[in-house]
């Protein structure tokens, strides 16, 4: 039995310990926001936060997650309580097909948590692990910058939501 925290709730699972975290979250806990894109850690569609850091979960065995704190896109914000990045994604009309966007946003949120005012090159470096086939990169970058340029507001909201 492997125990961990999923979006703030203590959970446990007895699946095969080799099962990647992505599939445990999707198929066993039925949270479908995190996506399967490549199964090889190459595209980032499956990105979640593990103890606050962005991780590609399609190649991360659940056995390695014991006692970790995992946040998925569902835990970041909801349509009624958007994370600042999610609001920026709407404002800048970032998503096209939308399939990769959960992973993009999780990668961006981890970046801003670690570096609230990243340079253009730092955004490129942090986001290079996430593929978008629709070509939303220019808008993803603009949306991240719109939040980071407003770093004070971002910090304030993060503290209100207990994510600081």
């Amino acid at each position, binding site marked *: 039995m492997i125990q961990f925290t999923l979006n703030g709730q203590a959970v446990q699972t007895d*699946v*095969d310990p080799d*099962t*990647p975290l992505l*599939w445990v979250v999707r*198929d*066993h806990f*039925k*949270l*479908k*926001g*995190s*996506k*399967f*894109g*490549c*199964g*090889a850690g*190459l*595209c980032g*569609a499956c990105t979640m936060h593990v103890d606050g850091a962005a991780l590609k979960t399609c190649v991360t065995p659940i056995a390695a997650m014991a006692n970790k704190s995992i946040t998925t*896109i*569902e835990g970041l*914000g*909801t*349509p009624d309580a*958007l994370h600042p*990045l*999610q609001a920026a*994604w*709407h*404002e800048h*009309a*970032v*998503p*096209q*097909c*939308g*399939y*990769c*966007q959960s992973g993009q*946003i999780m990668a961006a949120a981890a970046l801003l948590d670690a570096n609230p005012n990243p340079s253009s090159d730092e*955004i*490129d*470096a942090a*986001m*290079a*692990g*996430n*593929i*978008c*086939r*629709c*070509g*939303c*990169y*220019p*808008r*993803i*970058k603009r949306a991240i910058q719109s939040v980071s340029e407003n770093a004070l507001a971002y910090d304030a909201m993060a503290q209100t939501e207990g994510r600081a």
Partner: protein
Amino acid sequence: MNTVNVSRRRFLQTSAITGGGLVVGFAMTGCSSTPAPLPVASTEGGWTPNAFLQVLPDNTIRFYTARSEMGQGVTTGLSTLVGEELDVNPLDMEIRLAGAHEDYVNPDFGMQGTGGSSSIHAHYLHLRQVGANTRALILEAASQDLGVPASSLSTDNGVVVHGGSRHPYADFIATAQTLNIEADAALKPASEFQYIGQETRRVDAIAKATGTAQFGIDVDVPGMHYAVVVRAPVARAKAESVDAENAKAMPGVTDVLEIGTGVAVVAESFWQAKQAAAKVDVQWESLPLASVSTETLRRDYSAALDAGDGVEGPVEGDIDAAMQSASTTHEAEYWAPLLSHSPMEPMNAVVRIEGDEADVWTGIQFPSAVPGLVSRVADIPAENVRFHQTYLGGGFGRRGTPSHLVEAAEIAKATGKPIQLVWTREDDVRHGPFRPASLMRIKAGVDEAGNLTAWDASRAGGDISPDTFRGLLPALYPWMGDSMVEGVANLSEWYFETFATDESSTEGLFEDYDQPNTRVTHMTVDHELPLTFWRAVGHSYSAFAKESMIDELAQAAGMDEVAFRLQNTQNSPRLNNVIRVAGERMANMEVPAGHHLGFAAHHSFRTDVAEIAEVSVENGKIRVHKVTCVLDCGQAVNPDIVRSQMEGGVIYGLTAALYGGLNLENGAIKESNFHDYPMLRMDESPEIEVVIIDSGTKPTGVGEPGLPPIAPAVANAVYKATGQRLRSLPLQIA
């Protein structure tokens, strides 16, 4: 249920004028003898005036979007059209993805399909009329209920306004549903547009930013099992022997069975199915394709072009005489490889068959195909197949091919379980269907005044249409037996090899310039690879050949690249204007040292686009810094979505231009995932500026036209940077 009697004749006229006459099968409810019930939600006390709209008692305005949302923004575009005339803000509507029904037919296609950058063009008047007529019924009902003349009423975002009082549309639905409209309501003049042409946000952005948008792969039904298919490395090979003992012993595995396309492994979770699939040992039959490699393709195409005995396409004037009298002639050969679409969401479908009924959940570009295909496999009536459309995690043409549905239905039928079939990324990259490879030769002549006088273009490669036709035939003609389907498909293949060019094979290769003498020849060379539409279809490769050739010709004739294009597009005024505007921008660009500008322009899907690529070449690596995209797509219904489609087309096209290429070895695709079939990433993505020329005409396509010019624009810039003419895709410095 009342139906808005939008006149069928009017639609037919509209479609026949603008849709190339492709109106076969277009019908509204009430026109066929036994209209099928609309696949819409029941609404307690609500009103369903037509297949597209519902007004609920709480004044929720629900819109059923009939075209597949694969990222191109069509849900926003279509809800803007209907909302403009209904007078409801599209962002305030509840958006539903429509099921399969004849009322949802695409007027440009004659079937329920999304592609060819057609949706906004096809529905521009249609959905506005649906909105206008529905609003007219509400106003008439309000007039009766309030006992005031209709002329004293106006509307404001879902509310009827009378003097100082405001009444939600829902107040009048009891009366509205007793009314019929006699004549189509007048449409607004463009000067009164509130939503069309405005910078509104996307209706699907919040769902997609919060992980709550449902894609096919997110569907979960009780008792669902997961299937992965072990596929033949060489396309279409059948299993000769299967050893599944090790797979069956794996945890969670419930079934291993042979289906039409391979060996299906069914398990309680996807991960278990995927792990077990790797343990299946299959001996595949040997097919002629097994002796084919990438080099074989190019060699065979080249031999076909040398032999010259292809099918003649469009011919105009006297090409031989024109070539002889030209003051400058130039000839070159261009190569474009096999490509995978690789949408981020791998192909998948959920099929549940219970008794003589079936439910199907997937995101697909051709819902028309679903009932027919699934009913055939499940051996149940097509009207008993319920199709549930989801968001498409990328389409790009790939989700026009429904073979995964057939696979899921076969497995569900055989196992008696609800099945979610998922293709792995390796399945996706290796098994296609693919964008065909092409070898193109163009010889052209220019006179002393710089006029293009002769254009002799030929292309060798596989055809797209017969293969796609083969997949859709059983759905479109349910009465055909399997052997008849096979026979008709083979006949269509033979037809394109022998009699007429498949338009998709040569489109874009010859149409844009004014040359009075043209010859187009096509050599179908078929290695039995599965092929289908890929974003921009034939234009995805033809524009590279055509616009590289134009650049080479301008240089050979000693002319400026933009001036040469302007002089030779006089007969295409909209393309000419786009070239002029882009050319003026290019002339004023400040270019850093070591950076070079390449130019290309192309007409596709009724839209004209010119692109300027700012490129540098450092240590043999091509770097694209900035792309300026100038287009005329008529009325931009949502300018921001037009821009995003151009950005997306450029980046999708750049991935192909810089990296894209599948290679065959012993008939099998060598590449398998994003490590060896790489995609452009953020750190390589250029700055993109989009300039929309607002010509105010009826909207034309935007999903695809941004793609074709980018590869030649980059190649033409690379020539300036290095002196190398790169005539093979992907572009690689020698």
